[in-house]
């Protein structure tokens, strides 16, 4: 079973990468100059109080010991305690993760649906005026700073037209039985609209350009010509054969885009007061809350690495040449 063996080696590689990222992260946060808790030790503290506080966070031990403890805790899913909020980092981040994921996925689904359709359309209209104006336009959307776009959308659709609320995930004081109830409520959609749109406008470019160039490649394949010779309808030729094949790499890019998008969220969540992982990272870094920043960073990194793996898996799953080897 070379299949299994390949998966095993992939998993091992993944574990190694994860370990390396974790180690870099640890060193990054511990080797920076100054007392990591400087911002949290109240000036009125006695030396003993300061030492007690350092001990509480395990900062009094030698570096290598801290590292081992850190690794050990990680294996048990522990991310330590936040300096600022004085609560377990993992717990705090887990409450924010769903918000970030729903924003990421909804925006990417919109972006990919649009990007795939528009990309296929542009490939079909190759060389037309539509294509010649659309391509630079698409490139321009990728050149926009996301926060700028977000602010402009906020000004237009929220401040000026008043169509959407200006921030948050729900009306003030509204309570829902569960996250699921919130996410499926109509109000939530209106709160989600602007941040998701901002991210979608930025991220539709990748699937669009990818789909287009794949389509152009696939359209030159023999089986597409054959489909025509078979007298199949245009729809069958373009959609069933050309688009279906062009879609493969686009779908795998989806997984990778999830990783990239999580990073874009850092900015957009701040613009739209979205209680997510990205904003938390920014807050934690600016407040020198190292355990929290480290945890948020790690969580994003894990998603990125996992998504790289899922991209591989997805490809082998969607391409029968690999799945039916």
């Amino acid at each position, binding site marked *: 079973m070379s299949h299994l063996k390949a998966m095993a080696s992939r998993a091992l590689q993944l574990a190694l*990468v994860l370990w390396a990222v974790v180690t870099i992260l640890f060193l990054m946060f511990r080797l920076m100059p100054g007392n990591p808790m400087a911002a949290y030790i109240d000036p009125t503290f006695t030396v003993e109080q300061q030492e007690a506080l350092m001990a509480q966070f395990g900062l009094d031990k030698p570096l290598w010991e801290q590292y081992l403890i850190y690794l050990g805790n990680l294996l048990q899913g522990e991310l330590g305690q936040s300096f600022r909020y004085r609560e377990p980092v993992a717990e705090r981040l887990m409450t924010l993760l769903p918000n970030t994921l729903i924003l990421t996925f909804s925006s990417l689904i919109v972006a990919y649906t649009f990007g795939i359709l528009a990309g296929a359309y542009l490939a079909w209209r190759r060389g037309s005026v539509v294509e010649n104006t659309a391509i630079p336009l698409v490139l321009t959307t990728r050149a926009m*700073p996301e926060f700028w776009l977000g602010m402009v959308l906020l000004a237009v659709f929220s*401040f000026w037209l008043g169509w959407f609320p200006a921030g948050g995930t729900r009306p003030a004081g509204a309570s829902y039985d569960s996250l699921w109830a919130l996410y499926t409520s109509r109000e939530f959609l209106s709160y989600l609209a602007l941040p998701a749109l901002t991210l979608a406008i930025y991220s539709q470019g990748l699937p669009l350009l990818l789909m287009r160039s794949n389509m152009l490649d696939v359209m030159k394949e023999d089986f597409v010509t054959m489909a025509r010779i078979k007298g199949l309808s245009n729809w069958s030729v373009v959609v069933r054969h050309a688009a279906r094949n062009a879609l493969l790499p686009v779908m795998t890019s989806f997984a990778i885009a999830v990783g990239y998008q999580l990073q874009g969220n850092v900015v957009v969540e701040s613009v739209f007061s979205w209680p997510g992982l990205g904003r938390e990272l920014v807050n934690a870094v600016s407040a020198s809350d190292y355990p929290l920043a480290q945890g948020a*960073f790690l969580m994003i990194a894990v998603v990125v690495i996992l998504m790289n793996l899922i991209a591989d898996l997805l490809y082998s799953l969607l391409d029968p040449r690999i799945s039916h080897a």
Partner: protein
Amino acid sequence: MLDTTLPRPGFVARFFRSLRLPLNDPFAVAGLAIYAIFILTAIFADAIAPYDPTEILYTPNYDLAADLRPGEDGFILGTTSLGRDIFSQIVYGTRSALLIGLTAAFMVALIGSIVGLVSGYFGGWVDALLMRLADVAFGIPFLPFVIVLAAFLEPSIWNVVIAMALVLWRDTGRVIRSQVLTLRSRSYVDAARVSGSSDFKIILRHIAPNILPLSFLYGSIAIGWAILTEASISFLGFGDPQSISWGYMLQDAFASQALAKQAYYWFVPPGVCIILVVSAGFFITRGYENLLFPKLGR
């Protein structure tokens, strides 16, 4: 395609020829023209900008020249809430944008090319090691990395460049490695090796010139990345407050409620400048792609 047998012209000419600028693609030419304009602006910023971008300005009646609309009291694009000249900031912003963009691009292209060259040419454990390093770099979320770095180091526009040099060589490195792998198996490389050329010489004379366009392609993508990243970082408050960049201007504008003041003249021009420079990079990239991978066609 390969000019290995040509007599040696001047280094500069050789360099530019091996860059193979995509001059037949109209968009790429537009991109290069935009670059040219901004580069000239950056060079002659002192002559173009009427004020120092950080200078606090006053009106003729000795009031702070704050929130003036374009044209008022002779300020072309008006002034900021703290009484700085917006036009001068735009002009000087060009400098930091290009400085960040070009150095980041250079670093990314240089490191990526060296990694790709070494990895692809020598193979073996060097290759394995470098490619695992690339895997690790791929596992590091870039923007969070920049934020953390910017928070630890003193705020500076170079943080973005450092972060890019540390992380973003990964894409360039991988692509160039695979290019080197195909080049290495070409007959003229074998010929050079048989004729006793040293590895260093083979890399320098036969392989490097052929990957230069690829490096340049990834470099021009990196320019955009760097400028956008710097803007995001500034917006989040981790930027360098000492040097005027477009990202800093936008941050300043939003922090001063430019939207509520409807000060379009304040937050639109820096955004447009960023879009122009970054998409210029993309246009050039596209020109390259058509040149290097003509099968994509259009």
